[in-house]
């Protein structure tokens, strides 16, 4: 098979994650880093996942490629990708072929996702050979075009070693490698962490543009709400291994329904607006060890804690295309919030 030039209007696949649970083996037993997550990525959209450190974002992303590393293990659930089926049932060569060709992955620390001893070009050829690309020349040409698309001198970059590139350039190379085989589903794990503002803006712009040109289904994972808000169509908010809120980005940001989402938005430093309205979320983010075994994962920091939160894990309820997992949703929350702020 040869690499085909981007065909803008090929149908983007949809991705459906159902009841996904991923556990890590720790001295204290197997603890869930991702628990019962349902998430649907609509074809051709960019879905952003935000959450603080340790909320299970990377684990979720890796699950999409059935690539959770030991001591982690996917304990339950399915990840259906159109045209591929349930990724979690793929094994061996099938799985390998799916990775890279069907699902592109841009690594959390893309700076370090390149082999330091080989030039980018050689790594590109390795990629091509691994996926039985017959016309390697065409592959190189595609890669060069993609790089040029992202504002770089493709020929020079392909001749470079990883250490000869800056962080932003490496990140773009990572994106190129994820796309060059025409993957239609792309997962980007923290694509802009550790980049400075201007570079971050550039990368985000590139993501958006490439996404649209190639008609992809994209998952962008980040802890930076701002970054997601800039590119994503949909936003999923993760907390303690659960997706606590999911919906179109403007709606989720403009009218957050989950107390965590609200707290998070309030905690983001802003360029304009009333400083006094901003405040940090009390308490501290959970880790695997401190996650409560039962009840709502957020209750310790929640301003709207109720008795039921201690015992019952709130189910995710979808309404108007918006999903929220909170016992307090639908109850008059305005009042309680105001009370605290006085």
């Amino acid at each position, binding site marked *: 098979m040869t690499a085909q030039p981007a065909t803008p209007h090929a149908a983007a696949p949809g991705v459906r994650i159902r009841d996904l649970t991923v556990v890590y083996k720790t001295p204290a037993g197997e603890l869930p880093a991702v628990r019962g997550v349902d998430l649907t990525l609509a074809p051709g959209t960019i879905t952003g996942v935000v959450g603080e450190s340790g909320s299970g974002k990377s684990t979720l992303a*890796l699950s999409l*490629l059935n*690539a959770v*590393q030991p001591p982690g293990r996917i304990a339950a659930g399915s990840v259906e990708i159109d045209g591929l089926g349930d990724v979690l049932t793929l094994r061996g060569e099938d799985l*390998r*072929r*799916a*990775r*890279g*060709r069907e699902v*592109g*992955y841009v*690594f*959390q*620390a*893309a700076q*370090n*996702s*390149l*082999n*330091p*001893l*080989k030039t980018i070009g050689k790594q590109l050829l*390795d*990629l091509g*050979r*691994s*996926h039985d690309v017959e016309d390697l020349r065409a592959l190189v040409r595609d890669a060069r075009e993609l790089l040029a698309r992202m504002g770089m001198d493709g020929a020079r970059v392909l001749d*470079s*070693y990883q*250490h*000869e*590139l*800056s962080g932003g350039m490496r990140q773009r190379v*990572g994106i190129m*490698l*994820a796309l060059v085989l025409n993957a239609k589903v792309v997962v980007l794990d923290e694509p802009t962490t550790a980049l400075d503002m201007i570079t971050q803006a550039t990368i985000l712009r590139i993501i958006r543009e490439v996404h649209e040109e190639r008609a992809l289904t994209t998952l962008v994972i980040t802890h930076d709400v701002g970054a997601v808000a800039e590119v994503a169509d949909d936003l999923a908010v993760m907390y303690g291994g659960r997706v606590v809120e999911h919906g179109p980005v403007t709606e989720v940001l403009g009218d957050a329904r989950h107390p965590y989402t609200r707290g998070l938005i309030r905690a983001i430093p802003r360029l304009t607006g009333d400083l006094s309205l901003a405040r940090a979320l009390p308490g501290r983010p959970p880790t695997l060890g401190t996650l409560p075994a039962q009840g709502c994962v957020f209750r310790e920091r929640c301003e709207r804690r109720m008795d039921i939160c201690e015992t019952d894990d709130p189910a995710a309820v979808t309404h108007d295309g918006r999903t929220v997992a909170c016992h307090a949703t639908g109850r008059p929350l305005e009042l309680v919030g105001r009370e605290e702020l006085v």
Partner: protein
Amino acid sequence: MTQTVPGRHRAAAIARKVAGHVVRGLVMIWAVATISFVIIREIPGNPVLGQYESLIQKGMSPEQAERATAVLYGFLPTGNLWQQYVGYLGSLLHFDLGRSLSTPGVEVTTLIGHAARWTVLPVLAGTLLSFLLGVTMGVYAAIKRSGRLGDALALSGSLLHGVPVYVIGLLLTAIFATLWPIMPSGGPVDVEFVPGLNPGYIGSLVHHAVLPVVTYTLASYGGWILAMKSNVVAVLGDDFILAAELRGLRRGIVFRYLARNAILPLFTILALSIGMLFGGSIFIEQIFNYPGLGLLLVNSISSRDYALMGGTFLVITVGIVVANIVADLLYTVIDPRVRSGGAA
């Protein structure tokens, strides 16, 4: 901020680096030469008397023994210490290490040349063998590190690494030359075969080298396996390996990424240990009576052959200094990161 270095620039830079290394190496060699000069002039003991009494004990008549040793007097160094030192350094410049006392009339360089052959052969074989074996097993041990086999491999590595070479040598000799004598107990080759590329000679050479080579291999195998294991584990933790897997690269390619990155630092160690080979085989040569540099050194010491002792020691050191330089340069050449001055 990174920059690419133009080729001309790079060549000049490498030349400068080499020059720096060479100067440092020369200083070091001078220091060692001086040390050995000083030590050697301080050595107590009387080689002439020693030779004489040994001959008597072996049954020579006192007259014969006296005649046999008298000549040694003629070769003892004369002049004051400073003159000797200057003369010594002067002759070093001409690669002249003086004449041996215990093999009178023979140039030290000749003796060292003969001995070096016998050291290089088995130790090089042992080094390379252990390197290949250790590196392979190291990868295996790293990949299987949570399994029992990996554990056992690592432990065997630690143990072999920890056990001194003479223990291994002695055990092997006890087993294969004494209890179950299938190997010759010493010497480098049977004299009955005409030296050259004939099967008899080569067979005998190999037969005699088996035990020393195996000893050397076992002794250094542990170090390689441990180093390789920890490197592989470290590289496995590096993101680019996971990234390569997530790009769906073939297992073979991922493995090559892994191995190449893990093995890279080992090449410098390999260069160093090849440098060490000139001195690293003293015990093995002693146990297997292999006429290499190590044995030469030990013998020169017990016969108080000043010139030979100093010369051998110097050659051993020079070997290491050169290896150090080579290792550094090798690293510069094979690691693109260092090559362009990214990390030094």
